């Protein structure tokens, strides 16, 4: 017990005799002069873009972005996809210029500052009426370009653009049915019209060809009825409304161009045209329900 007490006393004296030491800290600060990020290896997936009628087509643009302050410093990456001759500058327009933010490819930018570069991908929904630039098109002398511009807090520098061709898409869509209703044997629709609305669903101005058949192409019928069939020339069309049946143009078994009829490339709202149909029922030999097919082909 005495030894323990002695030891405690000695320890106490040692503790009491140790000088107090008080350190202090200073915070060190600096800021890194910014270096703007630069894009490189810009690539548009596919040498030629083939659009999808009446809807959008995804165009994928990839790029590498390098920031010497570290890839984490990259705030955003903007991709401009544009008709080359119209430049990247200007408002977006579905016919010729798109802007899309690119996203970081997972796992391509390691945190901590050691990773200077990262990969980015932008998926651009290009409308079916984007200007074609392929051979034979109205804009064959130009191309489409992708410009990738990264940004940190101070901006960024776009690398070399990649280019591609936009394929011409010649396409249309029509209202589903031409409905003549009930007609007596030997009667026709006179000046009455049954209207087909043709919508341009491609990226060029189109003309339209029409031909028809009852059940199979090339059979020379316009409709097949419950009993009997109706020859092709009984079905007629005009580009003007209220044209007398006799003055309308007879449908043919092979595609024939509808004269003086075109539907422009869409620029703003959908572009459409109307074809007016008439029908003459044979004097005999048919009865019941009749149905056939009219084929509309864009040129």
């Amino acid at each position, binding site marked *: 017990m005495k030894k323990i007490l002695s030891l405690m006393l000695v320890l106490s004296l040692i503790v*009491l*005799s140790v*000088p*107090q*030491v*008080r*350190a*202090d*800290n*200073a*915070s*060190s*600060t*600096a*800021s*890194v*002069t*910014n*270096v703007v990020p630069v894009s490189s290896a810009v690539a548009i997936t596919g040498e030629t873009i083939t659009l999808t009628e009446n809807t959008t087509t995804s165009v994928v643009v990839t790029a590498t972005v390098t*920031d*010497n*302050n*570290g890839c*984490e*410093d990259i705030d955003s990456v903007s991709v401009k996809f544009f008709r080359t001759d119209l430049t990247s500058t200007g408002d977006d327009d579905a016919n010729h210029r798109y802007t899309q933010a690119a996203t970081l490819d997972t796992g391509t930018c390691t945190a*901590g*500052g*050691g990773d*200077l570069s990262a990969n980015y991908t932008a998926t651009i929904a290009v409308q079916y009426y984007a200007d074609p630039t392929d051979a034979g098109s109205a804009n064959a002398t130009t191309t489409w370009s992708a410009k990738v511009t990264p940004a*940190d807090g101070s901006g960024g520098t776009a690398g070399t653009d990649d280019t591609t061709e936009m394929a011409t898409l010649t396409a249309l869509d029509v209202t589903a049915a031409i409905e003549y209703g009930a007609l007596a044997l030997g009667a026709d629709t006179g000046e009455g019209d049954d209207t087909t609305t043709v919508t341009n669903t491609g990226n060029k101005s189109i003309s339209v060809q029409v031909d028809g058949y009852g059940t199979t192409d090339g059979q020379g019928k316009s409709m097949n009825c419950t009993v009997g069939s109706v020859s092709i020339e009984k079905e007629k069309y005009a580009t003007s409304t209220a044209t007398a049946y006799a003055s309308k143009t007879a449908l043919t078994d092979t595609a024939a161009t509808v004269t003086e009829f075109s539907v422009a490339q869409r620029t703003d709202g959908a572009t459409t045209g109307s074809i007016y149909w008439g029908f003459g029922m044979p004097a005999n030999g048919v009865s019941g329900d009749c149905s056939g097919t009219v084929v509309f082909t864009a040129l």
Partner: protein
Amino acid sequence: MRKSFSAPRTRDTRKYLSFINVCFNIMKMIIRKILAIYFVFLFVLLNCSLVYAHDPPPVASDVSINSGAGSISLTEGTTTNVVVTATVTDDNGCEDITGVTVKFYKTAMGAGAADDENNHYTVTTPTDVVKNSCVSLVATYTATIPVWYYADPAEWTTQVTPTDGTDGTASTDTITINTLIALSVTDTIDYGPLALGADTGAGDATTTVTNTGNASIGVQVDGYGASDSDGKSMICTFGSILLANEKYSKTASTAYASKTALTDTATTVVDFSIAQRTDGATTGDIYWGFGMPANGVGGSCTGTVVFTPL
């Protein structure tokens, strides 16, 4: 019967002698009265002197520093209150005590030395020495002495001296003031904006080190980015910077390349010391430089430099 006259006693002579005799008696009576008054006065005066001579001076006792603590730990950069308590007894009653003086001094200096914040303090009633109680002959006092952080580390004595007009009997106690090795530094080492791959050259960011203890000090430095031993000098918004990129010198305008690199463990700054304060604050400057990596860092960077006194 007086026989100094021998002339024949005529009637007029007798009358004259009778008058003289009356006057003599009156004078004798007056002298006796004066003598009586004189002796009474003398008696009273002697008595008063005896009473005065027996007024005992107050006596201090039971002096204690910080309730009997063995040592005092000062507080860096400021004062530490040392509390001295004492009992004072006055046989004329504690109300007779007119003051108490408390001296607190490095024992080696002696009580008679002049006040000096390094080694000698004096406080008195009523400002710094407060009477706590006064019952019958005994009063208790508490003195509060603000002792500066640079008071010498040594054995110190407190001397309590009461007075009732005449200094009474003093009493003392002793205690040890511990060594305080301490410093404070200016808060920030700011290098400002630096381009990737650039350094501060011969430019300096200066840290002023102030000795806030009671001994002459050397200084050790080490650093870290976010936590001790992380090997970094700063953590940036993006990336981090190695410790070796932060450098120091005790000489202003030393080229960055010639400065000494900061390390992860405390390293003594060579030939650098700051004396114990005696009058004004004692300080020293350390000059810092920084080199930005060629790439991999961005934004704002912050770190910590630890200054440890020796």
